[in-house]
């Protein structure tokens, strides 16, 4: 993969990483920090945690395809 192609991938990777921090630290965490309502029996914070794991795996898999860390 050429250097030119890698650069946008790096930018995408860094933006995605910062977005994940914003979503799961302050202020994004306010979305999940509540006792209810329960969804499929689980509270919002547990769903937030699952969402964090799944989103990170998807984003990192995209980065593997793009070869961003080279």
């Amino acid at each position: 993969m050429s250097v030119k192609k890698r650069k946008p991938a790096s930018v995408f990777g860094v933006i995605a990483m910062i977005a994940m921090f914003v979503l799961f630290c302050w202020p994004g965490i306010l979305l999940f920090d509540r006792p209810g309502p329960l969804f499929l029996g689980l509270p919002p914070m547990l769903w937030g945690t699952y969402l964090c794991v799944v989103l990170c795996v998807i984003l990192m898999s995209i980065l593997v395809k793009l070869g961003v860390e080279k």
Partner: protein
Amino acid sequence: MKENYWVVLLPFTLAYVVIALILGLSAAKRGTMKKLEGWAVASRRLGVFVMFFLTGAGAISAYTFLGAPGWAYSKGVPVLYVTIYLTLGYFVAYFFLGRVYKIGKKFHHVTQAGVIRHRYDSKVVGAIGAVIGILGCIGYGITQGMGCGYILNFASGGRIPFWAGITLVFAVMCIYIVVSGLRAIGWTNSFQGILMAVVAVLAGILIVKHYWGSLGTLFTGLQNEAPQFLTIRAGGWNYRIWTTSVLVSSLGIICWPTFWVMWMGSKSINAVRRTVSILPLYWFVILPMIVVGYAAILKLPGITPTDSIAMETALRALPLGLTGVLFAATLAAAMSSCEILILNAGLQCATDIVAPFSKLSETKITQLSKLLVLPFAAIIVVVSVTKPESLVGMLLMTYGWLVQLFPAIVGMFFWKRATKQGAAIGLLAGLVLSILFSRLWPNPLGIHAGIWGLALNVVLFVVISFLTSPPPKEVVDQYFNLHEYQEE
């Protein structure tokens, strides 16, 4: 509580120790253990399967099976920061691990401090990096040592004293680490990783079913009777400590010298990339154990110490045989994390503190690395016996120390102007402030001590780097032309 439970639990738990010993010793046959790269990084031949469990099980530790349910039981959802920081931490690590792998393979480095010494062209900076790494390993090792002590003491019904349990487990680990190095850890972690995942899910399901019937009933009960356990603020935390704890711990992942050793052991850059991209899926193992803590909030109030809640709950709710396997898995979690810590402590002390200031041959350095595993294990055992902090509390403090390596690591790969003076002074000042704000004035303004240290560290690192002579161009170029590296 079942009577004479120890007659079943203890054999299960001890059987696991024997299995780990056999697996660990068997691993030596396939490696070249007389050479440093053979012992320390398994001759750089680990594939995706072993890498996945080596890294995954290495990160899942005593706090997953003891500390995390304990926090869920006593504080509620703030414990979820563990899953979130591990996930985000590997996202951050992703940007570094390719570079770590390439620089390790190209220049035959086996430790993080070795890479730091090379890039900053300074034995002293390398040694400082090694000291911080070793401190982190000892701090985290104490968490695991305490876990080992709790498990064997509980499994034996108090017949194996806390100190004796820790000593036994560490003695066994030392044997197979000295003999088989990283390859032993890869093999044992693969077994431990599968065992932990299966047992955590099974225990979570059965314990919830026993006490509540379903997850919905459990959380509806909490919502009605103890809603404070379902929010961060009411759990005794606030958004500042949540955010700064996640931040410190996530940035701290890349600072763990143990992960560098693991990544350098990978057989290819693709293996390490693929491993890390799917690794967060393994953190689902933590969630069933957290749910075990929730299940006990209303059903078993007043249990102390809270770190023992998973064991207490299992003993009341599960068949004894399965409880025995859970105890074995809990011990596996503590051991899987601890093995790499004591290997790394011995390795860094020999290769980054002793060797650069002496004229030892590679064979002598390898022997010294193996030998130094023993005193570091002994230090962890002795401190663990004093039970210095709760498991998660100890973990948080350790991350505060280790994260001080972050600016030097970023500078190493991304800032050509970073100098050894800037790195050294920033590291030391950040470490001192972090220790002061952990011990004397804990977390001022509700902000994690590590963030305060990191802020001072970054300012000093940047200012002093600009005020001092730039590092040799030929060395810096080696780190900034890594895209030219081709795998053999």
